[in-house]
């Protein structure tokens, strides 16, 4: 036994090292991208906060990769500063989606790190609601690649106290490079109309984003003459939605609009609707615009429509197409829908740091807000005083079966929302 012991201990040690290596490997995206040991020049840190655990992982890691690509392309420099980047995770395995506690922790981490000047995030509008007020205290600028809830920036488009409630200091610190849902929800309703729908049933996941965009859909639908026959809010953790499907079958709407995200069981809702005999059109917002939705819904996904503040990856042209090719060369897969916004957000951040010329949160925030006629990958665009982009390109995609049998979101139409 004594002779064997040392050997087995070594084996154990090896196993432990291998496991530790594997763990470190999986958590790599959350580590800082190896910044050069900055000699002489000062370091400015960019932090991103996105759900890197759960169904959103694919989408989020794609955004992280794109941010890293933008920083690498700039030689990890902006003006006279070396740029360091750290990707934080605002989701937990137990919840399998973003958690308010985790997002607050990330925001406080950024706030208390004197080197952090830009916060790229969040993926979910509900999470932004948590971090904006925290970062607002220090004028630490946020650039979101994905939040679309209108109330975060636009007065009169959300609750009565929005958006001022998020900005306790009285000045703004939040911007986003994606068009908001007051455009997207409207595009969804217009699309339903174009498909010939006269009646619609609306289901939402009762989250800030999902309920918000469903409200916009309902308001627009009523204006353009689509009758709302019913509406349900669902629990994203329920085991089935047959009762809702029965409602839909009883009311026979031409279209069902789902306001919500893949993490809240969107695929199961669609499955139960189809199983329940619903044969009309299913339309969802960008919250379901990912491959996880298609995989989980399987056959039921075929023919589902999805709106998006931008263009499907398969329809990229010009510099966007170049970006997608570079991305694929670097990471071995096509970028997900939001990657391009992560890339643009990082570019805006780098440009603002260079323009500000000093390591000062307020000055860098001002520089981000001053972004005007920015020649980016999304076209030439500006931020308005609310921090919203002037880009209004919207697109509609359909879940189509490709020749190899897999499902993919394919472009149907590109629209410019007014």
């Amino acid at each position, binding site marked *: 036994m004594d002779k064997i012991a040392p050997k087995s201990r070594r084996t154990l040690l090896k196993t432990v090292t291998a496991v530790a290596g594997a763990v470190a490997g999986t958590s790599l995206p959350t580590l800082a991208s190896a910044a050069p040991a900055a000699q002489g020049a000062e370091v400015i840190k960019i932090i991103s906060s996105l759900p890197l655990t759960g169904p959103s992982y694919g989408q989020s890691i794609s955004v992280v990769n794109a941010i890293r690509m933008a920083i690498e392309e700039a030689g990890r420099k902006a003006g006279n500063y070396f740029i360091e980047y750290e990707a934080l995770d605002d989701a937990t395995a137990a919840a399998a989606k973003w958690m308010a506690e985790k997002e607050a922790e990330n925001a406080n981490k950024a706030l208390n790190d004197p080197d952090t000047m830009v916060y790229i995030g969040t993926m979910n509008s509900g999470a932004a609601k948590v971090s904006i007020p925290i970062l607002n205290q220090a004028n630490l600028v946020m650039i979101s690649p994905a939040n679309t809830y209108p109330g975060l920036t636009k007065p009169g488009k959300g609750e009565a106290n929005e958006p001022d409630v998020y900005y306790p200091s009285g000045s703004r610190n939040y911007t986003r490079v994606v068009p908001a849902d007051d455009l997207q929800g409207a595009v969804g309703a217009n699309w339903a109309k174009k498909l010939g729908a006269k009646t619609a049933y609306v289901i939402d996941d009762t989250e800030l984003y999902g309920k918000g965009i469903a409200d916009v859909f309902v308001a627009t639908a009523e204006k353009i003459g689509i009758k709302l026959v019913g509406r349900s809010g669902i629990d994203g953790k329920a085991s089935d939605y047959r*009762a809702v499907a029965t409602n839909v079958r009883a009311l026979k709407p031409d279209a069902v609009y789902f306001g919500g995200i893949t993490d809240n069981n969107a695929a*199961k809702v669609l499955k139960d609707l189809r*199983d329940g*005999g619903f044969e009309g059109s299913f339309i969802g917002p960008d919250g379901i615009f990912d491959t996880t939705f298609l995989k989980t*819904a*399987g056959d039921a996904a075929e023919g589902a429509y999805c709106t998006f503040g931008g263009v499907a990856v398969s329809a990229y042209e010009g510099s966007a197409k170049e970006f997608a090719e570079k991305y694929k060369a670097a990471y071995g897969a096509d970028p997900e829908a939001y990657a391009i916004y992560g890339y643009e957000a990082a570019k805006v951040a780098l440009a603002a740091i260079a323009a500000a010329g000093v390591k000062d949160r307020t000055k860098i925030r001002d520089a981000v807000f001053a972004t005007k006629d920015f020649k980016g990958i999304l076209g030439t665009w500006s931020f308005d005083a609310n921090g919203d982009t002037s880009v209004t390109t919207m697109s509609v995609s359909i879940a189509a079966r490709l020749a190899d049998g897999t499902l993919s979101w394919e472009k149907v139409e590109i629209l410019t929302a007014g």
Partner: protein
Amino acid sequence: MLTFEYFLQQLVTGLANGMLITLVAIGYTLVYGIVEMINFAHGDVFMLGAFSSVTTLQALGAQAVKRVANKDQPPIPETYLWLVVALITSMVFCATLNVLIERLAYRRLRRGSRMAPLISAIGVSFILQNVGIYWKGVSPINFPRYIPQIDLVKAFGIDSFVRVTTKDVFVFVVTVPLVIALTLFIQRTKLGKAMRATAQDRDAAQLMGIDINRTIALTFLLGGALAGAAGLVSGLYNNTAGFQMGFSYGLNSFTAAVLGGIGNLNGAMLGGVFIGILGAMSDGYLDARWTPVVIFGTLNLVLIIRPSGILGQDLAERA
């Protein structure tokens, strides 16, 4: 919307869901009846049962149902065989797992404080959830359609809003015989008698020559087997599975067991069917977002008015 047919449709949904909840609830109630602990890991055993079923079916190469012109085609005969194999595999897998859990995590704590096995159970629940994540990932997975969905009401030539599909019937075909078999086992066999005796007075039962450890292991075996069956049925009925399903089903089933009177087998059945129907009616007539409030509100009421549950008088005997 307020037609009788609409009500019947929700009733069908509620009954099918209720039978699934019953299968899981029995696992809670059996264990509570005999060792007076809530096995919080039970829902997660059920989840792993669903995972093992989909893995088995895919490994056997079972063919998913084909749809032609929006109609499900009947499966090829082999599929039925593979389903039976998957049912048995899943039941054996979950039964073994449950017995192992009892042996490793609960047995040594049996004579300790009441809290010890409870906390241990929560720990096991976390471990099983992480096994689930490691096995199938964090996203819900697609459980392919192996059971066709054919409306039997229409097939009999009746034109009605109510649809009773082959999938609904399938749930009953598997769950009802299992529940009956279990009841007979406990009431009629020697081992069942040993279980009842152990539940009534563990020390006296031991003095009468009953092997307590074996009897308790048997209880976990039976509970696990039913959870395994429920895992397969739930996968085939809902066509999704995810590592969190153990939590949501577990919570509903635990509620059902408490509602019916925990420790009482008939109570678990009554509670399961009741929760299933209550959930479907709340989804249908209120709104799905209120369903958890309705279910747990009812639980609160029952606990206030009748703390031992609807059929809980059996507990008094032991107290």
